[in-house]
């Protein structure tokens, strides 16, 4: 089968690889119909995540047809078209039982701080991912959901990560009616966070980024007020002025460690790796939220440490909420939102690429070429 093959920072290609096999009674093998490149794959692609081994196949946003099931899989059958949440979750452990499906204790040998994630380095369990024609899906009865007949597979594949992550970002913000919500980052997750903030009753939604083409999209997709921080002298002062000098009620970090916007952070975090990525978005979020406000983090950072103004968190009495999205918990609600036409995730897809051209797809997405917002791979043809 054809699969993405990581060769080192900024180097990927598609190669023939052995077919995945059933390795546990609750495994299934899925033939991939759609697979996205996620902004968080770019952290891997840029060599920022420790224990990213050469030869691994990435990809944690995919849907596909069930080809084979292990003896302990009872809810899925061969031929089902399923969307597969990016979290590998057992459904039985202490954490899954609390609905924390992104924090499963039975799916990641290499680290306890995060559950297993498909194709996301050995720090997230060492599973080959879905940027391939076939993929091994553990705990197949727990995570995957059969795609309803009426749903466009383009929406289904975005339900595996982008939509629930953006939605949970807004949910964790504890938004109350009329709140001003600032979303840092106009990538797919930031766009979904902005869109979801309205569902929780936000009064104002402001999106901050530095790419005009993404801000233009956010203005109508959110819809939201949008500002390019490159055109603003000091983002924090600007946001204070926008909010009667009090600060926003809720700030959402939908950027993570690959941020742009601060040269010192870029040098320390992105280039020298002295901190776990450039944390300027989180820095701005903490300093732009009002006293007693909530900062919600879904941006991905490395496992070490970051320079953030923690003293201001104390002095302002800020609540920080953060997690990997618990996809399974949110799916029923999000499926209903799509059915009712309240959200339209597939509008974010700008590129459709055969798996053979994966190197170009990664480069276009990483270098923000050709107006790229969300690329989708078609490993088994359209």
């Amino acid at each position, binding site marked *: 089968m054809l699969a993405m093959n990581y*060769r*080192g*920072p*900024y*180097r*990927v*290609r598609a190669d023939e690889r052995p077919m995945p096999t059933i390795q*546990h009674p*609750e495994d299934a093998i899925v033939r991939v119909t759609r697979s996205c490149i996620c902004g968080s794959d770019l952290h891997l692609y840029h*060599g920022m995540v*420790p*224990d*990213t*081994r*050469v*030869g*691994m196949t990435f990809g944690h946003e995919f849907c596909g047809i069930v080809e084979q099931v292990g003896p302990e899989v009872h809810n899925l059958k061969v031929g089902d078209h399923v969307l597969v949440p990016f979290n590998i979750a*057992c459904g*039985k*452990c*202490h954490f899954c*039982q*609390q*609905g924390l499906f992104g924090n499963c*204790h*039975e799916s990641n040998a*290499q680290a*306890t701080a995060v559950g297993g994630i498909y194709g996301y380095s*050995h720090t997230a369990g*060492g599973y*080959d991912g879905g940027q391939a024609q076939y993929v091994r899906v*553990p*705990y197949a009865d727990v995570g995957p959901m059969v795609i309803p007949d009426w749903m466009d597979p383009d929406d289904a594949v975005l339900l595996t990560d982008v939509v629930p992550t953006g939605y949970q970002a807004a*949910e*964790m913000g*504890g938004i*109350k*009616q009329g709140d001003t919500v600032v979303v840092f980052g106009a990538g797919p997750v930031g766009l979904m966070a902005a869109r*979801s903030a*309205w*569902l929780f*009753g936000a*009064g104002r939604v402001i999106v901050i980024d530095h790419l*005009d083409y993404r801000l233009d999209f956010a203005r109508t997709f959110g819809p939201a007020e*949008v500002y390019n921080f490159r055109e603003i002298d000091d983002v924090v002062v600007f946001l204070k002025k926008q909010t009667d000098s009090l600060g926003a009620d809720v700030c959402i970090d939908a950027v993570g460690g690959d941020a742009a916007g601060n040269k010192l952070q870029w040098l320390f975090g992105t280039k020298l790796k002295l901190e776990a990525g450039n944390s300027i978005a989180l820095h701005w979020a903490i300093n732009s939220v009002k006293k007693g406000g*909530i900062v919600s983090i879904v941006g991905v950072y490395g496992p*070490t440490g970051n320079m953030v103004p923690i003293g201001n968190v104390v002095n302002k009495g800020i*609540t920080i*909420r953060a997690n990997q999205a618990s996809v399974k*918990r949110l799916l029923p609600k999000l499926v209903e939102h799509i059915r*009712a*036409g309240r*959200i339209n995730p597939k509008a974010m897809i700008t590129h459709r690429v055969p798996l053979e051209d994966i*190197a*170009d*797809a990664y*480069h*276009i997405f990483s*270098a923000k*070429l050709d107006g790229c917002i969300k690329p989708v791979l078609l490993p088994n043809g359209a």
Partner: protein
Amino acid sequence: MTNAIVDTAAIPGWGIDADPKNDPTYPMRHIEQQETRGLTWKRPDQQQPDVEILRSIEHNRLPAVVGTSTPPSGLSGTIRRYAFRRSESDWWHWLLLMGADRINVVEGVVQDLARGTLPNIPAEMGARAEWRHNKKGLATKIGVTLALSAAAFALLRSRKRASGSDGVALAGPEEQTRSAVLYRMVLPDHTCPFGVRAKAMLEAHGFEIDDRILRTREEVDALEAELGVDTTPQIFIAGERIGGSDDLERWLEQG
């Protein structure tokens, strides 16, 4: 950029998920359903991995399901094994893994070459897309790369002249693919760690491995009786019995 104030009445589903109980928001700890609070849940079956799995020392047992992508190998693998002696809270754990990642890139190129493929690095980096969408950027990158290589080349040449030597050819003994036969035990409830270790050592030394897995106690007993030994794994290289994993380690050290 002009920004109109968004009219919330025009947003389909505005406020539909607002919830006064959502403070500071769901999910906080929901433990009503839990009978116990510790490591006592009914576990899924234990996967028996047939590759080496490095386990965080913050785990007290292997998770029921593990990923089997790209087991540790080569020098980077040795560094990774060492890194995993330290906890996730230890900065060195992560710095060593990052270092191993970089060494692994070189190993990847060597592996490609050993298989007889010259990796097309510009294509892997998306040069075609760069050409299509960012010609100016591509030209700059090529220009800078050429200038830097020319400078490096000139510098090296001038050094070589100064030392008056043409350098020594580094032709090592011709590498041959070596092969080994490995008998090791993988029972339903127990994967022999020494067998896994032996396999990893052989891989690290570039052996082609005939991996003969003994899946039942009877198979293990039969082999041990046949060879007149009482442990597994057993390794054979070029028809010669090397012994177990410790014997293999000594054998490999002696070259």
